[in-house]
């Protein structure tokens, strides 16, 4: 642990704050997904900092957690993007009507 505060801590906090802000203020689903991902990055940054602050080397467990987290976030985001594509390309009208399948 360094004596001066780690600047990345602030970066993590900033990512979280910005992510939260984006989630709250945006209406466009794609942008909201972006904000969520930024928030997620803040969480990952936090985990990495926690890992780094462990005396005796970076803690592998948070790293593993981040890795898992990234994959989950990406899969979910990819799924979300597919949803966005579908929801924004289909005509407004047929949202109420039963789909063809």
């Amino acid at each position: 642990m360094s004596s001066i505060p780690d600047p990345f801590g602030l970066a993590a906090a900033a990512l979280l704050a910005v992510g939260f802000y984006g989630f709250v203020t945006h209406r466009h689903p794609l942008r909201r997904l972006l904000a969520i991902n930024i928030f997620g990055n803040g969480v990952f940054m936090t985990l990495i900092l926690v890992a780094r602050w462990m005396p005796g080397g970076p803690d592998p467990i948070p790293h593993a957690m981040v890795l898992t987290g990234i994959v989950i976030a990406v899969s979910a985001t990819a799924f979300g993007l597919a949803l966005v594509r579908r929801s924004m390309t289909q005509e407004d009208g047929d949202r109420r009507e039963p789909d063809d399948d």
Partner: protein
Amino acid sequence: MTLFDSVLALLIAILAWRSVTAPDLYRGIVLFITLGLMLALSWARLDAPDLALAEAAIGAGLLGILLLSTWRVLQRAAPRQGSDEPASYAVRWLAVVGSTVFGGTVAVALYGLQVGSDRAGAEALASLDLAGIDQPVTAVLLNFRSYDTLLEMGVLLMALIGALLIRSPLAYEPWHGDTAVESPLMSVLAKVFTPIVVLVGIFLVWAGAYGPGGAFQGGAVLAGAGVLLLLCRRLYGDADATLLLRGLLVLGVTAFIVIGLLLMPWQGAFLAYPPGLVYVLLVVIEFSLAVSIALSLLLLFTGTHAVRAVRS
């Protein structure tokens, strides 16, 4: 060091802010990708090269391309829908205040953490020799907390099924019409670059046992190769998946579970490996995972049940 770090941290914050507040969605995406790269850089600085790799490959790279492609689809379908109407003034100000307080609280809490050494991580480092793999992160992923990894593969599979259900493909059918204007660069990219990327991917998977890398990073890079081929129109999305393809998709998770279950009666615990076989088993699992990850990510990108090579 601290100066560089500070600048990097500041840059990350600014990029994040700009990405969120960018008036234009496209610019927001680009800034997000840049942010991803900066994050990868910073994580490398924070002794997390595996994660830096993963972020660069998956978080920035693959996701970035996906975002951009989606943006393009949206632009083409309904250009005006892409424009963003922001929330009301009051909401924004309240959100600014709230988020700032929230960020501040997190920062204070973070800096207040007293991280000692009596931790699970320390124990993991100490038990590395029992894990059969030297690389601590891979050891955690594939052995100590292999259960998480296993379930995570399930998440990937479900996201894929979900994306398939929506039937909103990004790359479907060979792109007729466009093929005529195929640039020579593409052909070079496809022919020369792809094998290299594939090799890198395989190496990364293999390297996972010793250094930075592993199934995820490797798988992502392999998927990247696939995406490259897609973009170069050497591959296209297809509606009908063969049994083989589906088999490969579920290979990772199935192998993981089956091995775990088969060994359980002998080892007394799920996902416990006999000391002699541990390395072999882990490598098998890692490669099957990588295959599944690569395919899954690729199909998540296309949004189709299968990909096929273009027959010339």
